[in-house]
């Protein structure tokens, strides 16, 4: 058996804050305790999904021929959009949607726009190969709704396509 995992520790502290500490507090301290518990939730989800977000960025960087030594991928893309050296084409929009869907799933999966976006953009994830699972070009549903990877859109706790 492994020792306690980071995710287990985070969950335990979060539960402690919510169930033991919060009922004892009010006002400013109660509010901040809620913020603290939420922050631990973000870290736990980043542990679960962060590598996928990095994979989305790296796939785009490879496609655009960006050099990862030249700064973060998102910064290079933001500067390219600012200066007009990168086009806002289908590939760019699909990339931005995919990374944003993942980022919101990490930061605030209850945010109303996430359900809306998942419902609206199933097509934004139909790609030629999957970066989320080992099947790559043979994946039956490459991208955000890849059935082979544990992704919030497919997990038991949150159903894809919300509303």
């Amino acid at each position, binding site marked *: 058996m492994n020792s306690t995992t980071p995710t287990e520790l985070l969950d335990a502290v979060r539960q402690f804050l919510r169930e033991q500490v919060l009922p004892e507090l009010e006002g400013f301290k109660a509010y901040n305790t809620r*913020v603290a518990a939420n922050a631990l939730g*973000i870290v736990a989800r980043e542990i679960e999904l962060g590598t996928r977000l990095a994979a989305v960025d790296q796939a785009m960087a490879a496609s655009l021929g960006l050099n990862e030594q030249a700064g973060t991928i998102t910064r290079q893309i933001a500067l390219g959009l600012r200066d007009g050296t990168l086009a*806002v084409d289908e590939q760019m929009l699909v990339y*931005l949607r995919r990374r944003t869907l993942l*980022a*919101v799933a990490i*930061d605030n999966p209850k945010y*109303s726009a*996430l359900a809306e976006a998942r419902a609206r953009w199933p097509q934004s994830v139909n790609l030629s190969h999957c970066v989320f699972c080992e099947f790559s070009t043979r994946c039956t549903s490459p991208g955000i709704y890849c059935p082979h990877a544990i992704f919030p859109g497919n997990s038991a706790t949150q159903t894809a396509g919300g509303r």
Partner: protein
Amino acid sequence: MTQAGAQQSEETLMADRLLAGLLHNMPADNADGAQISGLHRLSGGANMETWSFDLITPAQTQPLILRRAPGSSAETTAPIAPAERELSLADEAALITVAGRYAVPVPSVRLVLRTEHGLGEGYIMSRERGEALPFRLLAQERYANARRQLAFQCGQTLAHIHQIPLAELPAGVPDHSGEQLLQRAQALLDRYDNVSPVLQLGINWLREHARFSPQRTLVHGDFRNGNLLVDEQGLVAVLDWELAHLGDPLQDLGYITANVWRFDAPKPVGGFGEYAELLAGYATVTGSTPAMHDIRYWQVHAALSWGLVCLLMLGMYRSGQDSSLERAAVGRRLSEAEIDLLLLLEGEFL
């Protein structure tokens, strides 16, 4: 001294100074036996403090609020001025007083703090009844009637704000009209390391579709669910004037209808009302109804602004200017602004 003891004595000193400042303006017979009671901090990060207390005199009990800049504890008279605050707290107080004269429901300003008060920079205003917490306003049965009135009242109130003659405004109200607004947005994104391609996409779109309004009015700048004090009958007071500026009045209409300020409730106006109600309230005062097309432009701007505020707050945390948990955590709300922008801009590029 224990930490609790130190806090106790700091609050006692603060209460003494509040009393001295307030009594200075008061007839002597009223001041006899006056005291400050129930002083406690309500909320806020380190960049703005809000305190609640009562001034008890033989004649009456006055519920009051102190709003002041950080670092202005009773021991320091030189507050740390946050670089991002353009409108001084004294001008904010003056603006609230002017707005009150033009049919905008606001608290009454009782005292603008000066150096000799020893309380830092800020002002004291009346503590009005009502609720400002969005989740309570949107969920509780006791506000059901208020929710039916509120969008219309917001429309009326925004129209009153937009009709305040510019000559009446304090000189410190900054001008963000025309191209300046987007130039400022780009400068902020550049300053925070161009961290978000989606915010850049938003700035590009706003630039390409810029509408330079012939109107230049006072814009509240932060008129949203959460900054509105509401009771069972509806709107009681408009709070948080620190982002007020001159600009396109429709900016406020895009802001009050922005998705992030609906708090996951379904209705477009603050989560509580419909567009038609807001616009009807606006039209009763101005005689004209803003176009949805223009409001949508300002919704894109509101989403961008939220993203930039997240970056600004994160920047304050990283620089050590404000080490509060809330500032660190709000940085992660950037992705809310990004997904709102992508949804709003769908179909605009291809």
